[in-house]
């Protein structure tokens, strides 16, 4: 019956291994803006061409309490000659899992250096923080989806083993 125990372990382990998506990611910049502290996160890490999550945390004063009533807009543009006009989009609290963060999903469509500006407004106060970061070329899709592609050979291997064991069992009987 220990074998069943391992089956339980495997089944539960598979449940735990289900992918989880927490936002946040790498701290791209953290700097004061007036009386507030603004931290910008970027995920995934390393960031590649394709969709990416930008999240912003705004903290007030020395206590570091999260500010939840600000308006945050992101402006993203590749740092290139003749690059397209910058993309502007709002970062919203509902868009991030962590409800203290303002989040937005951006499409980083080109590799190389990108400039990110976060415009933060709260009441009458407003300001911006800005940084640049590098976007790596896209990974081959196979490297992103290999666990899903590996399902077939894995199941086939288990099935072949199953058939071999069953035939062996029949021969013995």
């Amino acid at each position, binding site marked *: *019956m*220990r*074998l*069943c*125990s*391992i*089956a*339980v*372990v495997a*089944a*539960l*382990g*598979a*449940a*735990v*291994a*289900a*992918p*989880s*998506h*927490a*936002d*946040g*990611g*790498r*701290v791209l910049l*953290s700097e004061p803006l007036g009386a507030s*502290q603004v*931290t910008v996160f970027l995920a*995934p*890490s390393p960031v590649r061409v*394709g*969709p990416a999550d930008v999240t912003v945390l705004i*903290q007030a004063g020395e*206590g*570091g309490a*999260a500010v939840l009533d600000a308006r945050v807009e992101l402006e993203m543009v590749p740092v290139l000659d003749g690059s397209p006009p910058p993309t502007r989009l709002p970062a919203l*609290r509902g868009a991030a*899992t*962590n*409800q*203290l963060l303002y989040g937005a999903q951006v499409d980083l469509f080109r590799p190389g250096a990108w400039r990110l500006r976060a415009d933060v407004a709260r009441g009458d106060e407003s300001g911006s923080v800005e940084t640049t970061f590098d976007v790596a070329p896209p990974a081959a*899709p196979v490297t*992103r*989806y290999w666990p*899903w*592609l590996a*399902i*077939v050979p894995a*199941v*086939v291997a288990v*099935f072949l*083993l*199953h*058939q*071999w*064991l*069953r*035939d062996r*069992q029949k021969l013995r009987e």
Partner: protein
Amino acid sequence: MISPALLSWSFEPGLIVSLAALVWVYLRGRRDLAIDLPERYPTWRAVAFVAGAVTLYVALASPLDAFAGLLLQVHMTQHLLLMLVAPPLLWLGAPQLPLLRGLPDVVRRDGLSPFLAWHGLHRVVDVLTHPLVGWIAFVTTMWAWHVPWLYEAAIADPFLHEIEHFSFFFAALLFWFPVVQPYPSRPRWSRWAMVPYLVLADLQSTLFAALLAFSDRVLYPLYERAPRLGGIGALEDQATAAAIMWVPGSIALLVPVVLIVRRLLAAELVRPGEAPVHVAASRVRRERRPIDLLRWPVVGALLPRRGFRFAMQSVLLALAVLVVLDGFLGPEAGAMNVAGVLPWTYGRAFAVIGLLVAGNVFCFACPFMLPRSLARRFLPAGRAWPRALRTKWTAVVLFALFLWAYEVFAVWDSPWWTAWIVVGYFAAALVVDGFFRGASFCKFVCPIGQFDFVASLVSPLEVRARRTDVCGSCTTSDCIRGNERSRGCELDLFLPAKVGNLDCTACLDCVRACPHDNVGIFARMPAAELVADPPRASVGRLGTRLDVAAFASILVFGAFANAAGMVQPVLAAERAIAADLGLGSTLVPTTVLLVLGLVAGPVVVAAGSAWLGTRFAGIGIDGRTFFCRLALALVPLGVAMWAAHLLGHLVMGLASVLPVGMRGLADLGFAGVGAPDWSLAHVMPGSTETLTTVQIVLLDLGLLVSLYLGWRVARQHASRAAIAARALAPWSVVASALFVVGVWVLFQPMEMRGMLLPG
């Protein structure tokens, strides 16, 4: 008001589905076992198991996960739940037997039994469940993942983070197994040995906590860079994390020591005559009856009602009229027209999803039935359908022609063509069924119907007789002849001999006609009907039906050809070939590629592989029959490709009906609706990662079911597994190649048909 931090839950469908499935199987098995062994499986065990599953979910999807990268104390709490709370709770549920018992009989008996009897695996498991191995795994995992560089790497890389969580949990399950020693396992060591086992584990855990608590520097620089929430400094956060590990961690490890000692001492004090009396099982085991939709409270009453089907047909008829009107009168751009959006973005996708989750829902609600029924009041409908045409060949040709026309005339982007197709459909249905008896159009002509019939082989529901003995004693055969309550089956499917879904429109006439209330809609294993090849009512044996095999092949290869026809590399190749040949359009190269895909593919590749298999493996079946069986075995893969492809269109164009509807209303003079927001007809923004994952999983399932069916077919005609493997090898290569093509197509940039381009 709840703090926003406490609302930071992530939605993890994979985790929810996995845990829900586990709990469902456990509860199902425990329910049975509690009847035989009530003293072994009291209710509190089920409560413990469910609590363990809930703890797992809390650890992985609650705000603990959202804040783990910002505060070490939160991350520590998450790890403690994974290592010290969830595993013992799950083992307290004694889940081994309930999980085994809760599985479907066929999985337990045929799927798991060879593994459960395998001595090699027993030896591995003996090692893994040894207390020493569990202890070492627990301690090593904990220390290794807390090495700063590995810890930070796991936080930065989601995949590594998942491996970290998995290894914590896996090691903890091994660690807690000898401690809880869930029934029916037997202890390897004396139960007294669990005292030092747990105390030593606590000591090393305390040592690690002390390292964290008394360190004068932040061990994980990540938390120095992270913003300090609530003004908690990184060093202070580290000390709190240490305290959490120290105090609650120690409690989790030492309370079991007390319980074990108490129980051991109590057992030594119990005299033989005082052993607890086990209560005999008094409840009667409930018989598991197959799921019958018509026995369900609301659904069962609603589905067989003629009025319900009429309502569904009326809805689709109204939509078809809209398609025709807007197709002829509206703008000649698919993305802006009802005739572009409704059938091609929504209709196809919902029909295929309906086939996968239920059954032949399109035929049930077929809009062509109402005008046909009306016409039959005026037209004779008395002739028999010509004997020479009583096959699927007409539908094979029509379906292939449709796939060709779809590509060549860009039907998805031509509301005018779409409208004509719908009108043509109505006309054909009227003419065929206006002059010929029965449902000749459905059975022999309609390509949509044949698509649904063949695809419904993989549906999870089936209309069939409830009890064969009732059919055996029936003298009236109303299910086929009809009576005053309802006509009989127009497709000649005699219920006692009906096998599976082929040719069944799910009209439920048989349900209404049966005077014995002996017809149900049963849940079944999808595609299982293809394993064997018994004679089927009005169909015969599938192994002899080359026409059905041909349609199945067109459905399968057409799925890949249709999807490939919209990816940039294929379109570029067609344009390049046209340019090289000096042609003004891509008509010729597209036609050639489609002929290769739809004709050469099935004929040369699929039939050739089946012939090769029979030729060189010495299998006891002729090449033609083997091809017919294997052509149908490929259907799950083909349906999976259609589903993956059409799901992509549906998800990315989900909102496109809104501007189209607003435009239509504005055209009709409803000025108040405002100007349509055409940005909604663009490709939906956002990550396609989840969509691509779902599409790949669909293809995975399709290929696996196809390979399994192929194997079962080959095995029926081969004396040994090796012969079956040789016979199936060429065909398996074809199936795998189709899978690779499908994945390649999914990875390509697509021409988003029926959608507007931004800007």
